[in-house]
């Protein structure tokens, strides 16, 4: 593998401009260097790939598709350089008092304002509304499975939504002593290794800092923290962070309408 240093990344990054997620993401967050065919291809937000750091920390071999050596992970022909980022402590919700009503509407409006593409937005919002309304666990599971691998991007929009949904749903389930929902390995085969990895760690509630902030603030009903988290997540990928947020919101709506244990008072501030 060709050695590289961060100083090389800028120029190589600039040359790279052919597709959404790969483009323009080396901006503010800590960075991750990705190599392909022996060359540095792109740097991107480290948190976006936080699940990969778990692979490093736990020496986890991912479905035979990822190879770990001292410095790199490999996903197919994409190499990921080792980073020092670790995931946050397992999620702990202090109280289950989800954001509801107008609060959720405001967060959704903010997401709509920031969303990059009108057509995708329609798909994402309509899918999230459907998810929220699915009554039985079986229907919900099938609904989630149908979204896996749907849409464009390094992590398809559907995967981001499923990840957001499961993060919130399973965090709430843990608090309420309910069964968690997990997508089967077979269903995960519909998507790529990036999407698989993200859904896997999201449903296991192993989240990075920004996702954690969103899930906790949503479930504890803190509107301003939720908005803050959405703004932070918005820079992730082409629409990845926003898709994740839409999924999380959808889970919140689902819990509010289907579970009885949740307090239903409106919290808008």
């Amino acid at each position: 593998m060709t050695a590289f240093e961060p100083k090389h990344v800028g120029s190589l990054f600039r040359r790279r401009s052919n597709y959404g997620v790969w483009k323009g993401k080396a901006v503010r967050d800590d960075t991750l260097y990705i190599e392909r065919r022996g060359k540095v291809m792109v740097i991107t937000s480290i948190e976006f790939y936080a699940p990969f750091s778990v692979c490093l920390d736990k020496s986890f071999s991912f479905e035979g598709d990822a190879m770990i050596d001292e410095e790199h992970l490999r996903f197919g022909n994409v190499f990921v350089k080792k980073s020092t980022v670790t995931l946050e402590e397992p999620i702990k919700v202090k109280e289950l008092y989800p954001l509801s009503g107008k609060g959720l509407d405001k967060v959704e409006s903010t997401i709509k304002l920031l969303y990059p593409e009108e057509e995708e937005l329609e798909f994402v919002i309509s899918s999230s509304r459907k998810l929220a309304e699915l009554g039985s666990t079986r229907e919900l599971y099938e609904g989630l499975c149908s979204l896996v691998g749907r849409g464009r991007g390094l992590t398809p929009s559907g995967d981001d939504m499923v990840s957001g949904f499961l993060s919130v749903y399973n965090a709430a389930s843990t608090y309420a002593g309910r069964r968690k929902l997990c997508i089967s390995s077979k269903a995960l085969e519909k998507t790529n290794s990036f999407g698989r990895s993200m859904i896997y760690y999201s449903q296991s509630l192993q989240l990075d800092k920004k996702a954690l902030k969103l899930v906790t603030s949503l479930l504890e009903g803190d509107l301003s923290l939720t908005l803050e988290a959405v703004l932070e997540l918005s820079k992730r990928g082409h629409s990845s962070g926003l898709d994740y947020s839409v999924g999380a919101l959808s889970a919140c709506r689902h819990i509010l309408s289907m579970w009885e244990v949740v307090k239903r008072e409106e919290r808008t501030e």
Partner: protein
Amino acid sequence: MVSREEVEQANKKATERMMESEPMWVDVVRADEALRLKEKTLLHAGPPVRWEDASGPLRGALIGASIYEGWAKDEVEATKALSRGEITFEPTHHHACVGPMAGVISPSMYLFAVRDRKNTLEAFSNMNEGIGKVLRYGAFDKDVITRLKWLEEVFAPVLKSTVRRIVKEKKGLNVKQLISKALTMGDECHNRYIATTSLFVREIARYAVEVSGKKEASQVLRFLEENNFATLNLGMAAAKCMALAAHGIEMSTIVTVMSRNGTESGIWVSSLGERWFTFKAPVPRGLFFPGYSQEDANPDIGDSAITETAGFGGFAMAAAPAITSWVGGSVEQAIEITKKMYEITFTEHRYFQIPYLEFRGTPCGIDIRKVLKTGVTPIINTGIAHKKAGVGQIGAGTVEFPFEPFKDAFKTYLENYR
């Protein structure tokens, strides 16, 4: 809560007004007559700043202007008066005014007056002194003051008579057309004004000779011949007019001011009034005059980012490959910068076009939502001032506007439109 469609409509309205604005150079006016300044008040570039926080070049320019006005006889006296608040200073933008670098404007200075008849707006900018040791870069020695006096006593009166003749004949000089032409001739109209100034001379030379004495006309034309940046300030006043036309549109997320005072960089957003969103100004990187280096550079300063706000300058870098010899970088990077700016703008300019990009319109109307979404911030071409007062210009380069003002502006926007 405001809907996406409403914001899109508002932004369309704002950018339409920005693009359709028709700034015409119509007059040369004294600052004290045009701006109704309070007694012993100076104007400066960027967001408001206190004397104790002001950077070297801004302090230098304020000192120089105080000496030029006769309010102080030297640096010591001026510093005392400024630090005690006996001489006050306010942002140019609060007076529909713009000035490059320190942007200091004093009552006796003459200004370009630009009028947008479509939107009934007026904007002003001071006269450009050239490059190197000049007031706008914080220099204030005898030569600087002498040049300012010459601008006041010779240059401005000739231009005033000239423009009045032009107004009689064709209602003024259309600055948008001038910029539009220059963008197809290798200028980006922030840090390269060679074509613009040449076109300007072509437009005014005959009138200048007709309305003034041979000696004065010759001096003025000579000055224009030697100062490629002579039309920078006129271009900035036009850009301010365009940005003003886009300002004050309810629900719009379009940026209408980007400016820096050497300490902080700040923005205004169309729907958020004259509220500044600021953050520490970054230090530009670029090429330096012999004897100076990056270490001497002051943080970013000047109102000239109004050009990028209006859709040219750094946003039109792809139109000006030769600029890389002045600000550094490669032609490829210049093109990439323009392409990158499309990611954070609402539309493409109808009148400002880039030949190399198949006459694609320049990126126009910075949308705070897109800055927030992409994490990409505007890239600005700029001159570089020495961090110490009194030295002047030491180079030119580019600088990335900080991200935080956009984030703060969007948060405020959400609060306002919840």
